[in-house]
């Protein structure tokens, strides 16, 4: 097996507040291979975005990475000094944020923002960088790029701005793109275009993509594999067809059951009772145990570790062959 582009092992992220230290990410592990799109899905506050920010080294104080390892193409990057991680940001890891309307500096021409980024990471001349910027804008599907390059962000529509943001994220040909809810702020028809664009770029350049979203439709359309997050942990991870069609973890089951279908009979969607625990009140054992329909004693005391189930891995005691013996 070839080396994964991104390898995250037992990642822990803590936020130190005056009252307590809150653990937002608790033992998350996953790999993304070259050209692969990994979807990360979960409710708000499950730790999806924080995981993405941790990988690119943008967790702001009081948050910090308190444990685990992040490797980019075999090099460990989670403990690098700020200046070195900065050189990786934008060059080897590109990031796309949720809201294209606020991601671009309103006072700078988009061309200047792209050229600035290119010149930060390469030693191209101003003219060469400008030419590359025009090529990039063309690649992300902006019509008449040689004219639009001198436009200001407010002269672009939301979808077009997200294309500019994507051009900025890929301008140094990164190995990995982290897309944090890239389509949430866009309307549905534009969403499809942006998703297609990200998918095409990943395929053409062999870029690994980590796609954070809470939209299962986007996941099903785009991703090769999907990780379902709950309360700062990965509940289930596996190939997208398997996880969507045959989810194993009770939470993943609930999540997939909540997807409306067009062909669906006219009945209520399945709903998971309760809500995700707050960071300050995560129950011991499996964090999902208070809401789980299949809960048994061990779930309340013992934290489940990921267990291999074919191509999937699931963190649930139901799949532990020795489930009744322990605890």
């Amino acid at each position, binding site marked *: 097996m070839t080396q994964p582009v991104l390898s995250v092992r037992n990642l822990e992220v803590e936020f130190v507040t005056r009252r307590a230290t809150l653990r937002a990410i608790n033992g998350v592990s996953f790999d993304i291979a070259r050209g692969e799109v990994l979807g990360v899905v979960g409710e708000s506050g499950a730790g999806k975005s924080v995981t993405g920010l941790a990988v*690119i080294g*943008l967790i702001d104080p009081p948050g910090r990475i308190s444990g685990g390892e992040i490797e980019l193409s075999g090099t460990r990057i989670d403990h690098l000094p700020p200046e070195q991680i*900065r*050189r*990786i*940001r*934008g*060059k080897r890891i*590109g*990031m796309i*944020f949720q*809201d294209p309307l*606020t*991601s*671009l*500096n*309103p*006072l*700078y021409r988009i061309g200047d923002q792209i050229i*600035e*980024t290119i010149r*930060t*990471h390469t030693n191209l001349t101003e003219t060469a960088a400008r030419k590359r910027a025009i090529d990039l804008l063309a690649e992300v599907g902006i019509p008449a790029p040689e004219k639009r390059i001198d436009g*200001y962000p*407010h*002269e672009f529509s939301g979808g077009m701005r997200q294309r500019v*943001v994507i051009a*900025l*994220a890929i301008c*140094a040909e990164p190995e990995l793109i982290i897309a944090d809810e890239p389509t949430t702020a866009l309307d549905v028809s534009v969403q499809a275009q942006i998703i297609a664009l990200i998918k095409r770029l990943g395929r053409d350049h062999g870029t690994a993509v980590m796609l954070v979203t809470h939209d299962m439709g986007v996941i099903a359309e785009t991703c090769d594999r999907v990780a379902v997050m709950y309360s700062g942990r990965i509940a289930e991870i596996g190939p997208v067809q398997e996880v969507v069609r045959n989810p194993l973890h009770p939470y993943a089951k609930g999540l997939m059951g909540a997807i409306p279908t067009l062909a669906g009979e006219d009945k209520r969607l399945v709903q998971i009772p309760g809500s995700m625990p707050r960071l300050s009140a995560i129950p011991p054992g499996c964090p999902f145990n208070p809401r789980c329909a299949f809960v048994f004693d061990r779930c309340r005391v013992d934290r489940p570790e990921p267990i291999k189930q074919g191509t999937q891995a699931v963190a649930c005691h139901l799949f532990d062959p020795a489930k009744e013996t322990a605890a």
Partner: protein
Amino acid sequence: MLAFTLRRFLQAIGVMLAVGVIAFAMFRFAGDPVNQIVSIDTSAAQRAEIRQSLGLNDPVLVQFGRYFINALQFKFGVSYQFRLPVSSLLAERLPATLELAICATLFAMVAGILMGVYSALRRDTVLAKLFQAVSLIGISLPTFLIGILLIYLFAVTLGWLPSFGRGEVVKLGWWTTGLLTVSGLKALIMPSITLGLFQMTLIMRLVRAEMLEVLRTDYIRFARARGLTTRAIHFGHALKNTLVPVITVAGLQFGSVIAFSIITETVFQWPGMGLLFVQAVQNVDIPIMAAYLLMVSLIFVTINLVVDILYTVVDPRLRSTVGRAS
């Protein structure tokens, strides 16, 4: 863009007309001008003659028209106390006040922006907290007190700087400048600091608050995710966005600096227009007061106009919305 400028320009003229009415009214409501020109033993016939020669018997509208036309040509009448044309008195004093105001504003902007940026970027350092404390003093202490304290420290106790006056000045045509002599520069230091301190603290607090706000925005986070250097982010992206409101405030404050230089000029006996105005108030020299009023309003209105236009230069969003509106 043109329509926008034109519209603002017309508004400015409207404001100036209103101020003109007020200035004109001062002559009529601050007592009979004839009484202020003549002495006690002037006969009634002579008074009537003066009244006739000043045109005070004409209808009010005619008088206002005449005043207005004269004002357009910078003729503001003759000062009661100096028996000299007001315009030449003001012109003589203008360079002193303008030099002081410009130095004070430069000091306020440079020091204010530097301190503001520093205390936003290094929020928790001792120096940043010190700046905050000092700015509180600058905002709350009255100008004359600061001036007197400075005089006490640097002129009386240490004897480094002169306590009053402009020092030696050099004549450049009708303009006199203190910037070319050592004594002139030394004389400029304390009045500039006194006059600019309030503005400096204002700008510092504004820059700090704006900068903290801007640093939290998505585009700064995205700029960091693009791997730009900290310097490019702080002093390019963040500072440029911070400067939009700072330009407005600094611009508008320049008007107040000129208008309120009265106090500083009095404390330091600075031979500028403010000192002239204070003397005019003491002697009920209405032509000077009226002309000063007109001039200060003209400065305010002009600055407002320039700031509005500058806004559109800095912020491209305003440019196009303005263009679209017109």
